Each structure stands twice: as structure tokens, then as C-alpha cells.
């Protein structure tokens, strides 16, 4: 064990002190949210009354805006996932197979939204959406066009990593030379191989859409996040409860993505 004293690694004690302090600091706000949501008024006692209130019919009216916001957000999720699957994914496959020289251009385009602050894009989205509203009406789902742009960097990366990991050109050549049509190549060779990347992309898209606030608030749409802000003024407890739910939901989504990633790794190493 004398080698340990020379190595770059921290000593066991140092490691656990750093990680322990970090874990404690990061857990405090989450515990605080849970404690806050369980408070029974100003008495100092705890109960589940705020949780029960969400589901009681009498007070349901208060939360209509919240449930409407969640419904709208789910609709936006569906359309945004469709944008990823129908616009981004086919373009990525096409570029990989036919225009490999455009790959760096596509990557650059997909990274841009991360470098432009949402609040800056919003300044440009407002005039664009006055045209969109004339064409499609001001339906909540039209927000997906804007959110789809914000999602691009996150959706691009898992699919790109998956494409890089499989020999997509070789697989296509093999399938073609065995007599497969382009439909079969796509449906039975390419898409099954990209399954984990595509799923990760979709989950990340959902997580980003559910957390999006900036664009929705400026384009005056009621989504999950904007509804949380509204409800927070009248009933901070319920807002906190839903924030905890959303956090747990996002954590589960990301755990699934992690699992998908490791499944992919196992298959490749096997």
C-alpha cells in the first residue's frame, strides 16, 4: 500500500470528507422542499394536507391552471419529440450516409442554441411568433417550434454518439448488397441500432421541455413552469410539491438514460 502515498489519488479520509460535505450541501435544499411541503400551516406540525388538497374536488379550481399547464406541456413534449424524430433524426442519418462532409456543419448548427441565451432568442421569437400565430393560431403546441431549437444541442448528442459507435455506413452497405431496399435498411438495420441513442434523445427532450420557462413566459403560453410560478403566488406549498415531483421524474428519466447508455456499452464490449 506504500504506492498509494505516491499516487495522485486522494487519501480515503480526504475523499469521504469532500464527498460527504458536498452531498450534505446538495441534499439540504431538496430536504427543505419536502419539509416545506409537509408543513401544517404556521403551527409547526406536519401532515399531508397540502398533498391531499391537490386531489380534493372542492379546491380543484385553484389548481386548474396548473393541470392545464401540465396538459399543455405534455402536448408540447409530444410535438417537440416529433420534431426531433421527423426533422433532426432523418437529417442526421442522411448526412452520415450521403453527405459526411456536412457533418461538422450539422454539429455546429446543433450547438449554436447553447451559445445563444434563451432570453436573446426570445427577443427574436416574439416577431416570428406574431406570424406563426396568424398561421396556426396561438395554440400552446406552436411553442414546440421554438422549444425544438432549444432542445437541439441535447437531442443531437446522444444520437450522434450512437451513430459514431456503430458502423452505420458498413451496415448500410452490407444490407444493400444483400438486396435490402432503403426502407428495409432504415427500418431493420439503422433504426434498431440507434434505438438507445434515439430513446436518450427523446427523454432528454422531455426533460428540457418540462423545465422550459423563458420562452413560454414571453410568448404568453401556459405551461408547467409558468403555471408553477402563477400557483406559487397563491399556494406556495403546491408549487413546491409539484417541483419535487418534477425533480424525481427528471431523476428517473436520467437514470433510465444512464441505464440505456450502459446497456449500449455492454453490448459493444460483448
Amino acid at each position, binding site marked *: 500500500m506504500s504506492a498509494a502515498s505516491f499516487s495522485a489519488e486522494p487519501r480515503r479520509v480526504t475523499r469521504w470528507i469532500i464527498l460527504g460535505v458536498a452531498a450534505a450541501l446538495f441534499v439540504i435544499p431538496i430536504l427543505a422542499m419536502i419539509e416545506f411541503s409537509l408543513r401544517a400551516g404556521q403551527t409547526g406540525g406536519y401532515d399531508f394536507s397540502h398533498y391531499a388538497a391537490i386531489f380534493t374536488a372542492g379546491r380543484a379550481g385553484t389548481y386548474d391552471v396548473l393541470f392545464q399547464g401540465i396538459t399543455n406541456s405534455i402536448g408540447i413534449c409530444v410535438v417537440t419529440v416529433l420534431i426531433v424524430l421527423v426533422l433532426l433524426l432523418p*437529417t442526421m442519418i442522411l448526412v452520415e450516409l450521403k453527405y459526411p462532409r456536412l457533418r461538422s456543419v450539422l454539429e455546429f448548427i446543433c450547438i449554436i442554441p447553447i451559445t445563444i441565451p434563451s432570453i436573446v432568442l426570445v427577443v*427574436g421569437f416574439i*416577431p416570428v411568433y406574431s406570424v406563426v400565430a396568424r398561421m396556426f393560431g396561438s395554440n400552446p403546441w406552436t411553442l414546440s417550434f421554438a422549444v425544438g431549437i432549444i432542445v437541439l444541442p441535447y437531442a443531437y448528442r446522444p444520437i450522434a454518439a450512437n451513430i459514431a459507435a456503430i458502423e452505420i455506413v458498413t451496415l448500410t452497405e452490407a444490407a444493400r448488397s444483400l438486396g435490402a431496399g432503403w426502407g428495409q435498411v432504415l427500418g431493420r438495420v439503422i433504426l434498431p441500432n440507434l434505438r438507445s441513442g434515439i430513446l436518450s434523445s427523446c427523454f432528454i427532450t422531455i426533460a428540457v421541455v418540462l423545465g422550459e420557462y423563458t420562452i413560454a413566459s414571453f410568448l404568453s403560453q401556459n405551461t408547467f*413552469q409558468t403555471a408553477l410560478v402563477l400557483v406559487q403566488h397563491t399556494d406556495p406549498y403546491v408549487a413546491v410539491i409539484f417541483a419535487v415531483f418534477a425533480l424525481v421524474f427528471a431523476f428517473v428519466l436520467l437514470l433510465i438514460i444512464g441505464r440505456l447508455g*450502459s446497456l449500449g456499452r455492454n453490448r459493444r464490449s460483448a
Partner: protein
Amino acid sequence: MTSTVVAPVTPAETTRGAEATPRRRGLTWLGLVPFGAYVVLFLAIPAVLAVASGFFDADGAFTLSNFSAYTNPAILNNFWSSLWISAVTSILGAVFGALICFALLGTKADRALRSTVDSASSVLAQFGGVMLAFAFIATIGAQGVLTKWLISLGLTTNVFNSFNGSGPLLYQVPGLVIPYLYFQVPLMVLTFMPAMEGLKSTWAEANATLGGTRFTYWTRIGMPILAPAFFGSLILLFANSFSSYATAAALISQGGIIPLAIRQQLTSETIVGVANVAGVLALGMVVVMIVLMSVYTALQRRASRWRR
């Protein structure tokens, strides 16, 4: 990389027949159109409109008068706040994040500890926004757990509920540092860990063989090698904090930082005849982001030298 992928394509296309190839090329080219059109309509046009709107007045005539916004002390103050909040949270976030990465050195990537830290980091780095504001309202807000705890200890006026003589710390610009760190540190862990893992154990062995100590290893080998990656991540954190809006918007109803100043401008622009100051402020943000990203790419290039 590109040439190796191109190579297998060519023979297959020649087998398909000489006259079929140009026709197919013509059709496949159309496949790029939908995505291209989408990006032009919803990324290029909004980005150009956002920046260009600053150069026009309410009647659509070209003007530079909107730039007088930058002589307004309130706007300058907002810009300054944005910059120092980003600087403080990126430096603190980078130092604490790097410490956590250091603590994780030598742990196996597939063990439960690392996968928990990885998943937690990616959730928390994405956690910015309204929900993060709620978490800290529940922690250090006027009725927050820590605030009430300090009161119960006898500190009826403490740093959380009375800062600078103007109410709870959380609802003031300096108070943003605490929630911002909550997503900055995890982002640092995510972006800096690959560089930390790139340190080769042979370097530590060489250092030991030459009679070096742990201290000389870090000061003469580790830190110089990690420096470009560290500063690259730091810039990423700065940009992340600089462009973040939702958390501040949920906590502060007035201006204070530049995204909030843009909100004030946009919400007051419903009055016809007000100049496009929001566009000028957006341009200012874009300029800062371009500078940051240029430095970032330069540092990334330096950092990748050691990873070959």
C-alpha cells in the same frame, strides 16, 4: 475521420450504375430541406431579428440611438451585476467542482458511487429555473428551513431574512449566488471530470521515481496539465450563469441582471413608440457570449493536447 467514412461509400455508388447516381443525389439533396428550413425559420431568423432589432427605431428606420441605453446607469449597473455574479459563481463553482472531481479520482467509473454522482450531476446541472428558485425559497427564503432554524437559535435577524437592510437575501441580486452555485458545481463536475480522468498514472509514478512528493506532483504536473481544461470549464460556467434567466426571474420581480433588464424592456414594449432597447441588450449579451466561446475553443484546443 471524414475520409475514412467516405471511402466505403464510393464503391457502392459506382456499382449502382453511372446514370442512377446523379438522379439519386438530386433527390436525396431534398432530404436536407425540411431540417434546413426549420433551422432558418426558427433559429437563424430569430437570432438575426434579436440582434438586428437594436439597430431600428419603432418606425423601422435605421438608428444607433438605442445604444444610448448603455449610458443609462441602471442598465450599466445590471450589466455589471450580471458579470460579477457570473464571475463569482463560475470561480466558486469551478473550485468546488474541481475538488469533487479530485475526490472522485481513482474511483471506478462503473461503480455505484460514480454512477450516482454522474446521474445526480446531470439532474442538478439541468435543475436551473423555477424549481430551483422554489427549492431555495423553502431553504433560505423568509419562511425557509435554515432561516427558521437560525431564528429558533435566537438569531431573529440573520443574514437570510435581512441582508443589506433590504429584506431576505434570496430576493436580492447577491442572493442569486447561492442558487446559481447549485447548478454550477454539478456542471463543473460533468465538464471537468473527463480531463481529471485523463491524468495518466505513469506521470504520478514518474514523479514518485524522481523523488517527488504528492505536493510536487500537483504543483508541477497535475495543475499545469489541467489548467487549460480548468479554465475552459470555468468559461463554460461563466457563460451558463451569464445566460441563465428563469431562476432570477422567479426570485426577483424587478431588474438587477441583464436578462431581467431585457424582461423589463420587453414587457414595457407593449407601449407603442418605445425604442428597441431589448435588441441592444441582446446584442450586448451575444457579444459577451462570442468572446467567451472564442476563448473556450482556444482553451479546448490546448487542453486536448494531452489527451492524444
